[in-house]
């Protein structure tokens, strides 16, 4: 018996592994033939290259991480397939399970499927929250609890509605009904390349940014002073970072708020230590060492450690276009049933548009999920009724709450104007169509 451990050698041409212990009996090498004892004219049993094209092979030190099952379904019964494991995807899975305990449900998601509350991402840094605090339940646990087959790290790449076929990077799924809940992704202008700019639209982006900021006070540019940009700027500043907030508009939330409210918001952010640069166009970003240099039209070169972009969201139309679904700034859905233009396909959440307008708020999602679940299970009483959601800016000392649907053409009437509190409303005729409260009484 030999004392030297058996070694393995890999064929560089075809990947066959020669194992000294097993030899190559068909090629005339009995088990136990050491590599150095193999005659020079021996050939790879698979592809025929010679001994010289083999090199020592170390098997991977750890067993290959268990990958999710392929999409092929054990059961002949076609499942309801949900694409996306954000709040929308899980909400609809919950709603379906509530109505039908036996319905097969498959959930396809590009991420791990962990359940967390996305709005927390823009205020989590200053709370010191890490992924372990934010994740309420792992994807695997949630799937088990709801009896859902979860395909994590899986991308939906093709859709044929005629044959009810969703193609994914782990195989093709047939569905009885398909629910698109894949959300929207940050819209990055060409001057803001993804390899230089963070986006905080899901847990992965948040975690990446959090790691990049660890260990001290950093200079951070937040591009885009919309709701997410303002919240992030405040949160970053409250976490001890030096924040510059840039926007093309001259004030934060310029398109949403009337002038009096914008002024207060800007003042609030500046008191918080945020430098606001309005009417600013970015003409380019370069990585210089560990820093990023942002070239601007008005303020020259701004040097920062990290760049966070919050310039809005856009829904990818690729799947919808491929499948011929009506699409207008989002997947067009029936406002009552959330059905898309194709049979057996529904959509909800950030990826849809109602009357041509996306609706990217959390509150309506649970109602939309119930509507879809009722439509799919044939239960009555679940129609969705769209209401304009209440908009709440999560700025800490200056909460801003907007109710109703304002009209930029109409003036705002001031009801209360105190140093710490502003209350405005908009009327059409005698009817109040929007109200806005800035700060606390």
């Amino acid at each position, binding site marked *: 018996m030999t004392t030297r451990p058996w070694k393995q050698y890999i064929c560089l041409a075809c990947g066959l592994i020669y194992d000294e212990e097993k030899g190559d009996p068909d090629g005339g090498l009995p088990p136990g033939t050491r590599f150095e004892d193999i005659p020079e004219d021996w050939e790879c049993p698979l592809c025929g290259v010679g001994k010289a094209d083999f090199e020592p092979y170390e098997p991977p030190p750890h067993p290959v991480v268990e990958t999710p099952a392929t999409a092929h379904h054990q059961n002949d019964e076609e499942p309801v397939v949900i694409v996306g494991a954000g709040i929308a995807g899980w909400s609809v899975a919950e709603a379906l399970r509530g109505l039908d305990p036996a319905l097969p449900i498959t959930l396809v998601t590009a991420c791990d499927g962990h359940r967390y509350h996305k709005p927390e991402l823009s205020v989590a840094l200053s709370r010191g929250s890490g992924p372990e605090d934010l994740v309420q339940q792992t994807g695997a646990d949630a799937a088990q609890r709801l009896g859902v087959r979860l395909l994590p790290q899986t*991308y939906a790449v093709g859709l044929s509605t005629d044959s009810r076929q969703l*193609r994914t990077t782990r195989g093709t799924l047939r569905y009885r009904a398909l629910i698109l809940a894949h959300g929207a992704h940050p819209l990055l202008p060409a001057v803001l390349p993804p390899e230089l700019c963070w986006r905080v639209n899901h847990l992965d982006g948040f975690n*990446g940014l959090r790691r990049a900021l660890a260990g001290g006070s950093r200079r951070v540019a937040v591009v885009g002073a919309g709701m997410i940009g303002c919240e992030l700027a405040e949160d970053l500043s409250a976490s001890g970072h030096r924040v510059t907030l840039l926007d093309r508009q001259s004030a934060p939330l310029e398109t949403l708020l009337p002038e009096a409210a914008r002024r207060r918001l800007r003042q609030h952010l500046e008191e918080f230590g945020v430098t606001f640069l309005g009417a600013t166009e970015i003409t380019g970003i370069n990585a210089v060492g560990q820093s990023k240099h942002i070239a601007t039209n008005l303020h020259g070169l701004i040097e920062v450690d990290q760049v966070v972009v919050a310039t809005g969201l856009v829904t990818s139309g*690729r799947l919808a276009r*491929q499948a011929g679904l009506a699409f207008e700034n989002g997947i067009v859905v029936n406002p009552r049933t959330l059905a898309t233009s194709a049979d057996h396909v529904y959509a909800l959440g950030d990826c849809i548009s109602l009357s041509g307008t996306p609706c990217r708020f959390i509150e309506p999602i649970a109602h939309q999920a119930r509507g879809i679940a009722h439509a799919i299970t044939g239960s009555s009483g679940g129609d969705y009724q769209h209401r304009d959601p209440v908009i709440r800016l999560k700025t800490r000392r200056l909460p801003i709450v907007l109710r109703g649907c304002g009209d930029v053409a109409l003036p705002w009437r001031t009801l209360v104007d105190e140093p710490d509190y502003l209350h405005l409303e908009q009327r059409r005729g005698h009817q109040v169509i929007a109200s806005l409260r800035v700060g606390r009484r």
Partner: protein
Amino acid sequence: MNSALQRATDDIAPVHMERVRAIAEGPLAALANRIDHDGYYPLEVLAALGEAGALAAHLESHGQRFDLAVDAMREVSRHCGTTGFLIWAHQVCGLYMEQSGNPHLQGTPLQAHRSGQTFGGTALSNPMKALSGIERMALIAKADGHGGYRVSGSLPWVSHIGPGQYCGALASIRDDKDQPAGELMFLLHCNDHVTLRPCPTFSGMEGSSTWGLRLDHYPVVPEQIIAEPAAPFVSRIRGAFILLQIGMALGVAEGALDSMQEVESQLGHVNKFLHDRPEALRREFDDMGRRLAGLTGTPYATDRDYLLDLLDLRAQGAEFALRAAQSAMLHQGARGYVMSAAAQRRLREAQFVAIVTPAIKHLRWEMDRLSREEWPQ
């Protein structure tokens, strides 16, 4: 490129689809089993298809008609998957030569190639996978100090080559210190510097003239160079490379649909109990055809959405060919189980469509890679 101008001035011979069809249905169909099983390499059929324009339609000199090139391949693959594969290998080799911008490859050699007077394929299976990060580059090039290179290494199986033929190949360049220094793509001539080794017997597609290839300080002169650096070139032609293959998947699947239809009048009364009936498969087939038509007009597009559409269709085509071939077998019953039956051969052809580079698993890997978000480091 000056393709628009060229199109207007060149004497463009469009592909004669009727002639392609006649060749495919006639002499080729009669040879299909010899090609698949006995290793008959149908060069005279390829020459005839070349005369009919099937090997040139996708080239800029012929109006860049990828729709016609794919359609010709579909028509041929419908009767013989191996020959469809040979057409693909031949077409992409012509594409490398034309797109190289190297006048030594574009002139007489390309003319002979595109008309089917000379023959050559492609050895890009390993490099395509290597450039995607799936495996390691098999060929290594070192500068020879005179503007050329010496290339060494082995490739296990390269098709549509043979003594006196050629193929597009790609090697990883190593500098003086043996460090990686980019890639070189070149037209490899199967001459005395190249050892061709017979491959093990395959379960089908034996007439694809597939060899193991060993290079030992093979000299590459500038006249042979297709691209250097090669990575941007490969990125640019990757879509066209995959797009052309779709004709193979569709053709094999369509042949399977033919086999199902062939027995419908006789066996329809029992075949109606089977899954994947011809009408349902035909609808899916037509849907793929429509989507293909939306992709053939921009074969060199490199944007993410285009590539995802393309990879998705190629993967679907492979899965579909497998399903259709399996269903044809069940529809034909015992007569399809005869060793020489077309339905039997198509099982092997469909399996080939599913495993040839990019195989279904590679396509999924690539779609996964394209779909991932990019983050700051």
